[in-house]
């Protein structure tokens, strides 16, 4: 299941140093977070509703900027107005919690949106997708298990299928980083694991770094190389996992009792 991290463990693709950020001036959604994520790994962020885990993802693709601290994505500072980072954004597949599919267009068209930054003005204005992009999109749709459904409109799909389209769109970007916000929440046990396996398999093949937000601790431990637990915007715990063993255990400022309480809250869900 897990990709090897032994040879490239010094290669940090995402580094956050003492990062704070807020939506309004009073409350910080993310507080003093330090993260460093190895290239090619599966990194899980676990926390309860409103803990700031989605905000962490938005910081990683430049949709939000930190009010304090520094972030480096592949050694670059995220900034949506910077041309250089816009090219970088194309390499970051981002799947928001509500997926952000365009419901009135087909599965194939939704997938091809991932190729838009590679197209010139004329092609994109008249929806003329190059043949090789269409072939690539069909290949990816087959990979995610949607072949034969290319011409379906997005709103006609089931919840699991919609998630597969969002994954296909992200893969179409030929990403180096995949950010997924609760992509398997609200799915049944079997479908959730199917989709997780899909991501982990593709991750190995493409040497992708996947950063996935979960609210299910069990799922995170099962698939991730490292798991960070976020509570009230702070990282309170980070675990390294190898097979069934926890190999590394770092706590923040919390006591053992508080961590145990956190765990039991997670498992109740």
């Amino acid at each position, binding site marked *: 299941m897990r990709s090897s991290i032994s040879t490239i463990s010094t290669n940090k693709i995402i580094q956050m140093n003492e990062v704070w950020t807020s939506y309004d001036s009073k409350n910080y959604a993310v507080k003093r977070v330090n993260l460093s994520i190895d290239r090619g790994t599966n990194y899980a962020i676990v926390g309860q509703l409103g803990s700031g885990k989605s905000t962490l993802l938005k910081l990683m693709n430049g949709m939000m900027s930190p009010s304090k601290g520094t972030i480096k994505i592949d050694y670059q500072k995220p900034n949506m107005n910077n041309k250089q980072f816009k090219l970088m954004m194309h390499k970051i597949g981002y799947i*928001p919690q509500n997926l*952000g599919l365009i419901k*009135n*267009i087909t599965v194939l068209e939704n997938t091809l*949106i991932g190729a*838009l*930054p590679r197209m010139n*003005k004329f092609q*994109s204005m008249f929806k003329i997708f190059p043949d090789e992009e269409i072939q690539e999109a069909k290949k990816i749709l087959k990979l995610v298990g949607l072949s034969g459904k290319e011409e379906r409109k997005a709103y006609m799909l089931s919840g699991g299928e919609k998630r597969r389209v969002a994954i296909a769109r992200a893969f179409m970007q030929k990403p180096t980083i995949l950010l997924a916000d609760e992509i398997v929440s609200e799915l049944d046990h079997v479908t959730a694991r199917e989709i997780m396996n899909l991501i982990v398999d593709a991750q190995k093949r493409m040497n992708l770094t996947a950063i996935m937000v979960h609210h299910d601790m069990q799922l995170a431990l099962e698939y991730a190389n490292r798991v960070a637990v976020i509570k009230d915007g702070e990282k309170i715990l980070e675990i390294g996992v190898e097979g069934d063993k926890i190999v590394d255990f770092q706590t923040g400022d919390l006591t053992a009792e508080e961590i145990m309480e956190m765990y039991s809250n997670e498992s109740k869900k």
Partner: protein
Amino acid sequence: MNQKNNLIVGIIIALVVVASYNVDANPVEFFEGIPNLAIVAKEMTHVEAELFAIAFWSMFETIQMAFIGTIVGVAISLPLSMFAARNLNNKYVYGPVRAILAAIRTFPSILWAILFVIMVGLGPFAGVLAIIMYTVGFVAKLQYEAIETIDSDPMDAVSSIGVSKWQLIRYVVLPESAPHLLSQMLYMFDYNVRQTSILGLVGAGGIGFYIINYIKFFEYGKAAVFMIVVLVTVLIIDWISVKIRDKYIIKSQHGMEVVTK
């Protein structure tokens, strides 16, 4: 009902009576005038059959004027509404565009028609220009409001890919707002047919031009024939647009069937 309500109703009735006296609105005259309608109806039976051909032809001209006005008006208003939407621009862009649109909307179409009759002379072209202006001012507002209600999830997801603003408009804004845009266009066409029917009153072409001329020369029977043609046409267009709306727009909003193009 208590005392106070009775008093309010009494005052309102008194106001209506006083106002009617001031504007010479006399119900007796209304009832005495009813037989005059019979004269008009009788005159209608005396009009020649060719008149219907003229009536339908001028109605057809009216519909064509409304059609050009609606299509060109929507084509102009669509880019303007993209600049006027708050979720796509900063306030230095949408502020001035909205101000211009509001200024265009302050003129009713009949005033635009007078202005264009002065500019390009009598005839249907002035009417078409008036319809275009009215459509731009009105439809652009409906459109930017529809664009502002688009779901922010696809916007966020697609803009995070690093696409250009034009690509965002082409691939997210247009498909997501298409059912609304189509519905507004139908509504506008419907409305413009009715509007164009009266633009002839100021010499801007269309069926209204005939109606006002017949009335001037006391040929009420002929005028009535033209009015009936307007009535029937508007009813038919209304019926067709309801059908189109049911087929494409209502269903798409319930996620059953969808129009993208």
